[in-house]
């Protein structure tokens, strides 16, 4: 997309007129000849040469040179793409913003334009006014903004989930009057959302009357909306509309479940020039009932989000017909029912027991009279659990209720039935009465053309009156219903076929059945409240299409109100219970979606593309041409002796190299930055201990290792720095050799990353000393809290088999000759890797014991022991230090001293 091309110094372009002159001049100069030294000149002199005429420069060379010059001239004229138009205005500035959901899709461009306008206004110290057109319960006052407040002008605005209300905005323009009149010509910038509304022309006129109007509209970025397509045959069909049928648009629909997981993703491509596309989301029934919303990927707009209403969930309906009616499948009740609910439900037909086992949410009994006792019990239990049972009357039911009312009916029935309008009846066929307010059908308009000719009558009485959800004009019930447990039982007093009434062939039938199936989705509580139930907002849609918690002033809505288009008092979003929310979408089927047209006012695009100076590429091209010209001139005069192929290759390289090189090469750091702690640890040898989170234990670990380090410096060639504390999750263990890990009671198993860290540490030569510090408490195999924690941790850790350390182990020989690895307590064995002949040259990577070595080593800064030894006094402490020295020696020197183990054998062999 090329924007406007402008020149910084267009006068220079006049030099292009001189090009033809140049053509004549250049043509007159012949190309320079090949020059040859030649000794046989005496012979050449004798040759009669024809008159030497200057050779003409080939036309293509001429043309190339002219292009070269033209390029230079144009480059010098400073061509700039998308140069910002100069804003010479000085009066007040009015910024009108459509902060609506269509604007959210390219809000960044609008924001940038706003920031730019505000910056300009701030620079020239102009009074600025902000008018937003999205409807709001508390519209912002129109007052001058100036100075620093202008900087934040773009930040205080966010797109709202409503369409623009330009009529109100027109009225509010009057508030500007006191400011504008005195200050001369105003500059009015209308950042429109590009969507047509009713009062566009009036608004534009009103704006134009108050100053110089610039209208911005977005044509480049796609403006899309997403709606449920009810007309398409598929169940989960969505219609995507876009405002401008420009280039092909490729995107994806993402269906998200209530718990946030992605249910499905369907890629789509709107062909070039087309504005509408229907996308079918293929979701299994179970998944589609989990659907919370569908959105167009990477489009942030409330219009590009479809919120799934719980009422749209597809119920699984079990259809059970009476055994007798099986004549013509086209005239049966189940057929009418399934036709009516085809869009909204799936059906299971069959035996009642099978149907219940199929885990249906609604069971429809079509003219079923008596149920067997077991079936009735199962059905009753199912209803108690929350099922919705819908029964239709018919000859069988009427017959069955002759002697006593069948089970599972909401009201007592009178036997037989009642017929109207027949030859032998007195009454005329009855019409429907208005639906009672407390019935689930409340709000539906009773169809005037539905006549009921026969019905099953209920025993009149208070209960019947209360339980009548729909009545005929004479007050007799058409539909009765009652709650039973967590479920509902409803009875149509007519058949599901048009035999008894016109209801099954009216549109009302569908709505009534759907209202009843809603009960399975919303729960029977929906019944109690009737039409006046108010649903509290659960999550509200922002203009960008995000779901946010409702603010304090969000009001609860009735179901009927939620059927209306959204308004500031009724923001789109989810209402009601989180599991079964009612949805109010930002765009409904009636939402108009047409591009804005303002006769006589040009629409300016948002300066989405920054100005691009074309001079550098032009100069580059000119230089390349110059190079080519030079090479060609040399070639023609024979100065370049190499083969043309090589010359062409050179030319190609020269030409292509600038194209391939990156415009702005950014140096990437080759290696990840090194953790300063690790860097420090790598510079000086350190002992390390694992942080447990318990300050006392951590302090003891540190004190122990400090004291051990001191002893190491005193006694050995190892001169460690201060000990390092290790967070297993984050720290790099590769720079340490010796890691002390005290296990506390109830220690949590480290994260997977930490475990992997430890395994790596051991695998690459580290020595891990695990200390449960429970030696004196561990008696036999009885578990202590520490050993249980250790067991949990080791269960996750991959380590070699362990064995109690014996006297010949290298740990006993590495520096001092020891008989045991002494700690503060010396009761239970210390464990090391059993057969560590594999990795690490047979050096154990792990030492596990409960001897509280750190406690034995620990001393304060004056060298006074921090913990008493369990026995043996200072001599025992000395052995603990020797043990520590040996461990560190093993960590640093490995099996170097294990040869000592073999010394007796070696000596013996030498003796022989």
């Amino acid at each position, binding site marked *: 997309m090329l924007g406007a091309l402008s020149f910084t110094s267009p006068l220079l372009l006049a030099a292009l007129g001189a090009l033809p002159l140049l053509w004549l001049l250049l043509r007159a100069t*012949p*190309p320079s*000849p*090949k*020059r*040859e*030294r*030649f*000794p*046989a*000149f*005496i*012979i*050449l*002199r*004798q*040759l*009669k*040469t*024809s008159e*030497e*005429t200057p*050779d003409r420069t080939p036309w293509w060379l001429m043309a190339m040179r002219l292009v070269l010059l033209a390029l230079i001239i144009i480059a010098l004229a400073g061509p700039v793409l998308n140069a910002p138009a100069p804003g010479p205005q000085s009066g007040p500035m009015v910024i009108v913003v459509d902060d609506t959901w269509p604007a959210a899709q390219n809000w960044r461009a609008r924001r940038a334009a706003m920031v730019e306008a505000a910056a300009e206004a701030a620079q020239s110290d102009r009074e600025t006014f902000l008018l937003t057109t999205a409807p709001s319960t508390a519209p912002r006052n129109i007052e001058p903004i100036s100075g620093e407040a202008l900087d934040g002008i773009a930040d205080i605005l966010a797109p709202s989930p409503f369409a623009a209300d330009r009529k109100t905005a027109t009225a509010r323009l009057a508030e500007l009057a006191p400011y504008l009149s005195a200050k001369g010509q105003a500059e009015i910038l209308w950042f429109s959302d590009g969507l047509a509304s009713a009062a566009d022309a009036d608004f534009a006129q009103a704006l134009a009357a108050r100053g110089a109007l610039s209208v911005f509209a977005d044509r480049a970025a796609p403006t899309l909306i997403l709606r449920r397509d009810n007309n398409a045959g598929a169940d989960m069909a969505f219609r995507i509309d876009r405002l401008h049928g420009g280039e092909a648009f490729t995107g994806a629909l993402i269906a998200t479940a209530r718990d946030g997981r992605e249910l499905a993703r369907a890629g789509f491509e709107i062909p070039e020039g087309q504005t509408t596309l229907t996308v079918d989301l293929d979701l299994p029934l179970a998944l589609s009932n989990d659907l919370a919303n569908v959105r167009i990927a990477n489009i942030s707009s409330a219009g590009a989000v479809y919120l799934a209403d719980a009422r749209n969930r597809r119920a699984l309906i079990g259809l059970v017909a009476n055994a007798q009616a099986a004549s013509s499948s086209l005239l049966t009740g189940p057929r009418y029912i399934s036709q009516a609910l085809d869009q909204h439900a799936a059906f299971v037909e069959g035996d009642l027991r099978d149907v219940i086992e199929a885990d249906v949410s609604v069971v429809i009994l079509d003219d079923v009279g008596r149920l067997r006792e077991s079936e009735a019990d199962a059905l009753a239990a199912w209803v108690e659990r929350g099922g919705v049972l819908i029964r239709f009357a018919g000859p069988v039911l009427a017959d069955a209720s002759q002697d006593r009312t069948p089970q599972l009916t909401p009201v007592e029935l009178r036997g037989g039935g009642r017929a109207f309008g027949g030859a032998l009846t007195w009454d005329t066929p009855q019409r429907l009465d208005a639906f009672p307010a407390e019935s689930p059908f409340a709000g539906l308009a009773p169809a005037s053309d539905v006549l009921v000719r026969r019905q099953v009558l209920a025993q009149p009485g208070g209960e019947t009156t209360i339980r009548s959800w729909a009545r005929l004009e004479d007050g007799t019930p058409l539909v009765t219903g009652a709650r039973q447990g967590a479920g509902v039982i409803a009875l149509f007093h007519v058949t599901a076929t048009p035999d008894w009434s016109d209801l099954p062939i009216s549109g009302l039938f569908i709505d009534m059945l759907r209202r009843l199936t809603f009960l399975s989705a919303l729960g029977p509580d929906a019944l109690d409240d009737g039409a006046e139930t108010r649903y509290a907002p659960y999550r509200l849609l922002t203009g960008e299409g995000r779901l946010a918690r409702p603010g304090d002033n969000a009001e609860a809505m009735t179901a009927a109100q939620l059927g209306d288009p959204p308004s500031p008092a009724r923001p789109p979003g989810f209402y009601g219970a989180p599991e079964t929310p009612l949805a109010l979408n930002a765009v409904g089927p009636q939402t108009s979606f047409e591009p804005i047209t303002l006769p006589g006012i040009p629409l300016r695009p948002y300066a989405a593309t920054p100005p691009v100076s074309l001079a550098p590429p032009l100069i580059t091209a000119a230089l390349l041409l110059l190079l080519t010209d030079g090479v060609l001139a040399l070639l023609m005069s*024979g100065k370049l002796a190499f083969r043309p192929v090589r010359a062409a290759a050179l030319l190609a390289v020269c030409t292509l190299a600038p194209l391939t090189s990156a415009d702005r090469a950014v140096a990437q750091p080759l290696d990840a930055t090194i953790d300063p702690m690790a860097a420090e640890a790598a510079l000086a040898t350190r002992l390390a201990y694992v942080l447990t989170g318990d300050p006392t234990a951590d302090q003891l670990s540190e004190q122990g290792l400090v004291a051990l380090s001191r002893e190491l410096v005193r006694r050995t060639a190892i001169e460690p720095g201060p000990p390092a504390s290790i967070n297993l999750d984050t720290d790099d263990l590769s720079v340490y050799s010796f890691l002390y890990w005290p296990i506390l009671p109830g220690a949590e198993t480290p994260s997977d990353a930490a475990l992997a860290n430890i395994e790596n540490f051991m695998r690459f030569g580290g020595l891990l000393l695990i200390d449960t510090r429970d030696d004196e408490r561990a008696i036999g195999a009885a578990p202590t809290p520490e050993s249980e924690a250790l067991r949990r941790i080791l269960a996750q850790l991959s380590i070699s088999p362990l064995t109690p350390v014996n006297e010949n182990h290298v740990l006993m020989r590495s520096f001092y000759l020891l008989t045991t690895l002494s700690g503060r307590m010396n009761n239970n064995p210390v464990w090391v890797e059993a057969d560590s002949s594999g990795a690490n040259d047979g050096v154990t990577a792990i030492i596990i014991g409960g001897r509280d070595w750190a406690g034995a080593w620990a001393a304060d800064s004056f060298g006074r022991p921090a913990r008493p030894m369990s026995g043996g006094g200072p001599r025992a402490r000395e052995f603990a230090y020797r043990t520590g020295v040996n461990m560190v020696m093993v960590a640093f020197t490995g099996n170097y001293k294990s040869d000592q183990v073999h010394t007796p054998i070696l000596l013996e062999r030498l003796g022989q």
Partner: protein
Amino acid sequence: MPADNPAISVQHDAAHVAALFPALLLEAEKIARSVSAGMHGRRRAGPGETFWQHRPYAFGDPVSAIDWRQSARATDRLYVRQNEWEAAAAAYLWRDPSRSLDYASSRNIPSKRRRADILITALTMLLSQGGERIGLLGEERRPFQGRNAPQRMLEALNIGAFDDAASAPPVASVPAGARIVMASDFFTNPGAVETAVAALAAAGAKGVLLQVCDPAEENFPFEGRVEFRDLESADRLIFGQAGAVADAYKATFAAHRDALREITRKAGWTFISHRTDHAPQTALLALFAALADMRRRMS
């Protein structure tokens, strides 16, 4: 690159030229050896000045030829002293010193000048092996003789220097019976060549004209618009379509060569043409054979 100090410049040039010597000598020797293989020297008794051998007196020997001192040592016989057979005159060589020879049309073939130097030096070697004296035509100094004749010839050739004025062979006086070898491209007025040849022939000299040419000079492989520059006079000629005059050039070139050949025919000399892209041995063999033939005819 003229140096500020002429002495240093001369010294530098001399060193440069001296550096050329061994390579050139080596190359010339290689060529000469390939030609001389299988040929015997000319060491036999004959008219000359140096002693060759004594032989018993035979009837008819002049009495003055008897070596009395030697004869006195023997009892009953007389010895005649024989001198070594010696050519009546030396071979005189000439190589065109003008800049016109400093030309090679391609990097892969030597310049005419170098090829001529090599041929002359190699010829010197061959002749000196035969014990002959070799002189430089137009030089005052005495003819060289013996083992170091090639070096001295090279020195005399002054291979680093050019003399554009002497592009035609000099008219010099030589002893009668001298043999002349002139190596040049002879891109000069045939009249000048004829004058020199006629003068030498009149003095009783026989000789060879060796025309050394570059292949480009024979074939004229130029195309398109070409400006030719003379190496000696720096004159320029521009041909718009060099390819178109190639045939005319070749005809003129052939005519020029015929003129040279005619000159040699008249003088009873030999004309040899040599191209620098051909093997030098061929030319050397032809030269040597021509010289040997002349000797036979003269003696």
